[in-house]
């Protein structure tokens, strides 16, 4: 009797241990990586991306995670450099992430693509527009439109503005984007165009830059630069007395533009697929949480990362096993109604979304209509 009791007790203990172990296995977190520029030029914009992603992950975990498993976001700084990109992605791959969200520039993404996808890991981004990654049946997905659409819409805008000559200010630190962008514009724009290239990683000679921009006497300057560069350029152009049209890209669609451009940002336009006047309840809720958690307004950067993490988490919920192929299938099968509208991936993992002209008015981005 006593022996039986002891055996029963031991058995129960073992069972308990096994159960705990089993439970533990079931509650092991699902890791996803976020590789973006945080410390390089424009790193402040990366903070927004990180904030948006962190908020999405936090929300997902509060709601029970992905099929009961918590989602863990591993953040890596790609330093806006090739080495940084490699180091960041390798670190994430080593950590066994299910997918990598990255990077925050087209050039970085192009650099990361072979590293990540060759490791049979899904690479997904909301911030790369280069067509080098378009229309490929691979493990690359993006929620942002590519330069083809941007080129077309920019050409449309120029035509509408009756711009006959345009000069492109191109920051070659993101050459994959800027070169692609200009090429695509030129496909659809028949006017005169010239290019002024510089590298933001180097010390910028603004005087020369401005001189070069003004030399063609173009009717419009298209700035393919990030926010701080755009802001300084706007101030410089204003100081130089330039009164022509100024157009920017989605790359400069961050609050930092106002910080750096000051009042010279007034009237500045940019081509983007992010509607600054988004009044969707989901977006308003996201915006309120951003303020609560990070004491910051929601913006184009944080909204995209939030949207992307939500899409990825949804796909993770629908896969029988977590691997890149299943994720890919899940993403391709999904139709998403996000805080920024509908997202449907084509078979290559690319999207087509509405593109707007956004104008800075009274220190705020305003939607000036879909292009």
């Amino acid at each position, binding site marked *: 009797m006593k022996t039986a009791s002891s055996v029963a007790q031991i058995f129960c203990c073992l069972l308990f241990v096994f159960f705990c172990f089993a439970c533990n296995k079931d509650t092991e977190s699902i890791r996803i990586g976020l590789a973006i520029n*945080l*410390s390089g030029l424009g790193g402040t914009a990366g*903070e927004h991306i*990180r904030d948006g992603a*962190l908020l999405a992950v936090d929300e997902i975990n509060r709601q029970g995670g992905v099929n009961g498993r918590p989602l863990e976001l591993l953040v890596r*700084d790609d330093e806006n450099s090739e080495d940084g990109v490699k180091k960041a992605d390798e670190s994430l791959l080593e950590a066994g992430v299910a997918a990598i969200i990255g990077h925050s520039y087209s050039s970085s993404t192009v650099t990361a693509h072979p590293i990540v996808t060759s490791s049979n890991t899904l690479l997904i981004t909301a911030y790369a527009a280069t067509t080098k990654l378009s229309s490929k049946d691979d493990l690359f997905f993006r929620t942002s439109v590519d330069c083809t659409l941007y080129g077309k819409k920019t050409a449309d805008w120029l035509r509408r503005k009756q711009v006959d000559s345009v000069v492109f200010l191109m920051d070659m630190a993101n050459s994959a984007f800027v070169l692609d962008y200009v090429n695509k514009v030129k496909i659809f724009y028949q006017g005169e165009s010239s290019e002024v290239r510089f590298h933001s990683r180097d010390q910028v*000679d603004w005087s020369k830059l401005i001189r070069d921009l003004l030399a063609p006497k173009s009717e419009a300057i298209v700035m393919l630069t990030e926010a701080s560069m755009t802001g300084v350029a706007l101030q410089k152009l204003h*100081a130089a007395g330039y009164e022509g049209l100024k157009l920017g890209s989605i790359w400069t669609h961050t609050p930092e533009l106002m910080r*750096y*451009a000051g009042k010279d940002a007034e009237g500045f336009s940019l081509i983007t697929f992010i509607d600054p006047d988004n009044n969707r309840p989901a977006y308003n809720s996201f915006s309120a949480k951003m303020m609560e958690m990070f004491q910051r307004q929601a913006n184009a950067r944080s909204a995209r990362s939030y949207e992307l993490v939500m899409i990825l988490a949804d796909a993770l919920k629908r896969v029988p096993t977590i691997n890149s192929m299943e994720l890919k299938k899940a993403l391709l099968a999904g139709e998403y109604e996000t805080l920024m509208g509908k997202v449907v991936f084509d078979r290559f993992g690319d999207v087509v979304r509405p593109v707007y002209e956004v104008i800075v008015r009274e220190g705020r981005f305003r939607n000036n209509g879909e292009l």
Partner: protein
Amino acid sequence: MSHRSLRKQVALVLSTVALPCFILVIVVAAIRNYQAVKEDYANSMRARIGVVRSLIADTVLNQESQVLNLVDRVVWLMPQEKLAVIARDLHLHRPGNTWYVVDGRGRVLLAADPFSEYVDLDFSCMGIPGNGQKVLHRQSLLTKRSMVSVQYQLGEEMQLVVEIDLANIIPNMAHFTENQLFIGEHFFVLSPSGKVIYHPDRTLVRTRANLKFAMKNISKPDANGLFTFLYQEEKYIALSEPFTVPTGWTMYYSLPWRVMFDKAARVVVGQVGLLILLFSLLFLLLVQILNYFFSKPVSRIVAALHSSDKSGEFEISPDMTGGVMELETILLAIKNRDEAIDRSFKQFQAVLDSLESIVYVADMQNHTLLFINRYARERVGDVLGQKCYRSFQTGQNVPCSFCTNDRLLDEDGNPTGVHVWEFQNVGVEQWYEYRDQAITWIDGKIVRMTIATDITDRKNAEAELLQEKEQLAVTLRSIGDAVITTDVDAGIVLLNKVAEQLTGWSQEEARGRDLTEVFHIINEKSRKICESPVERVLEYGETISLANHTLLISRDGTERSIADSGAPIRDRESQVIGVVLVFRDVTEIHKSEKELLKIRKLESVGVLAGGIAHDFNNILTVILGNLNLAEYYLDSHEKAYSLIKNADKACLRARDLALQLLTFSRGGEPVRELTSLAKLIRESADFVLHGSNIVCKYNIPEDLWSAEVDAGQMSQVIQNLVINGCHAMPNGGVVEISCVNRSLEEVAKIPFRGSGNYVEIKVTDYGAGIPDEIIDQVFDPYFTTKEEGSGLGLAIVHSIISKHGAHIGVESAIGKGTTFTILLPASIKHIEEEMLAVQTASGSGTVMVMDDDAMILEVAQQMLEYLGYEVLIAGDGVAAISLFKERQEAGNPVDLVIMDLTIPGGMGGWEAIQELQALYPEVKAIVASGYSNDPVMAEYEKYGFVGSLHKPFELAELSRKVRSVLAN
């Protein structure tokens, strides 16, 4: 419950007590130690955090010490001079640090190399300039590095903005980073938005990581200010302190929670170990002491007890107790108690063995006998250890179906008390009373104890008693009298059926009530409540009868006369335990007695009347006889003749009156003679109506048939009916008497059992009439509606009519009157009319008259001699017989003897005729008597006479009778 040795028990108890105490102490010590460790940590951390905070603040604010000096120098200069001095003298030493000067609108006036390109740019949107020494944390526009910008006022609305690369803080913290007080400790500074300003991890600094967001499950600070948080799934304990300058920054000092916990655990473990050691030593010491002074002596005592169990002797030795006085006392007490128990056991055994009942104890689960007494052993043998059902029941191999084990315990297994029941062993026809009880046996187990006593005799006695009771009950029910029994307090115990009926109380209702409430008696005459018979019985202690004239008033108020008696009920010691009352309803008896009394009174009156009538008749005989003779000797024209005639009639009336008196008193058999009803009716009615205000109307036909009736009685009938009619018409009126001859056919229609022809006589009055409800009672004796009168008149009428084989009926209508209708059987004989003066014929022969009255003898002699007979007289039967003999022997026989029926004190006529007939069968005798209703007179032939003479008799009647007899 398993038993352990004392040593083990002591050890167990000590362990049981010590362990919780030990655990409690450990827990308390652990908590206290942990708190102490935490406090120590908190104090250490607080000391360090303060230092680090100051260091960082100093590093941030005063990293470039020359800045302050320069600012002090230039603040007094002109703006251009300021700029010149700054441009010349301001060289920041740390890599990544840079500076620029802005005007009051944020426009860059001067910038360090290589950032001169930013001159004239508007930095106002970047929060520059700020008020006072504002510190901003962000990525630098100029250097692209994470920095904090510190603004210094230069005067003239100019500000010097120095950007400090946050990476430069890290070397300053190298000392702290390398010389960790606690393994895994981290100092980090977060901005108001939670971003890393300083952290040993450069990446976090460089990327301005939002560490606050990453810190999960942040607990509230405890008393020491320590709080915990989760970071990357690891738990940390931390202390935080705000910066005063720069404002909004927070210094954190964290270390892995496990570090402090391990430290605390080591402390606690150390203390616990020490405590364990201490407790163990104490425990062992205590155990040893207890063993030496307690367990071992007790073991020795136990051994001695075991030994005594076998040997029966319990010896105490000095070394047994180890010198402990208390143990020695206990031993002595054990020994004394042992002896006392042994005595007690023997007493108990003796008691049990002396019982004449089976006493046994059995296990309730397996029914094994654990104890049996001597009586049981003698009955069933030594069955100890065997099953009770096999031992005490024949042929029972399984537990008895009537086993009471289930009733001896309640749901909780507690004894329910003694269960008493009776059982008859049909095999031996013996009754047993079982007293089963669950008891705690010597081993502490609950067992069944049974005491079975043979109660066969008692059962038989009970059966007999029951039978007696039943008989008594049946007897009581059958008794015609009422029976009530009470207790000594006059509380009713029992009422039988009759008592229930008489009192109106049922047994159930009356039981327990006071007797007077149920048996409510009063005096019939005074109507006062009678004394309680119970009290009288109890007072006298003997049987008493209650007073006469006691009325019992029943519950519904009915009054009944009762006769009762009461007697004490005694127990075997002759103590009075109650009273029994027996009573009966004597209401009817009283009524009957009253009636009987009335009848006896009437009989007495009758006897008196009879006696008077007899003597009166005798006297009348003399008077009437002499008057008759006188009539014959006188001429009818003489004056004295009519006087004598009237006197004669008066005698006859007197005779009739005497006859009525006799009839009334005796109701005797009618002496029937053929009588003229018309004459009788008229005379009777006239007689009674003489002097009244009632007129009688007769309607009697000439050819009315005669009837053989007793004239006197029939006259009485007519008189009573007429008197009844008179009473119905107190103010006068007419009574009609109608007579009709009725044939058999006419009578047959009337409900009347008779045959032959009848004379119908109707007597009708026109008075008040008789109500229907009482008309059937008018002929009942004593029934009367009048205040006066015996109520016998119509009863006598009915009796006389009935004795005549006749019928009487009554019809009446209220306010119209009453008609009595008599149907008398008519006679075929005709009445021979005889003239009194002419028909008195003479004759010859010798007639002897026997009577005790001399005057009657004399007048009879004269009357017979007048008629021509030779008369002999005798005073009684003896003389008559003697004289008759003499004359017969003399050859001069007597032809006829007239003998008085009754000779007081002598031989009467009947006895005499019997003797005479015995001697001389041909003797002819006529019986004479004043008792005309006597059966001898009515049926004289049966008694040997040839005729009868009613006194007083007239001469004509005497002549006729004699001549008739002598002629036959």
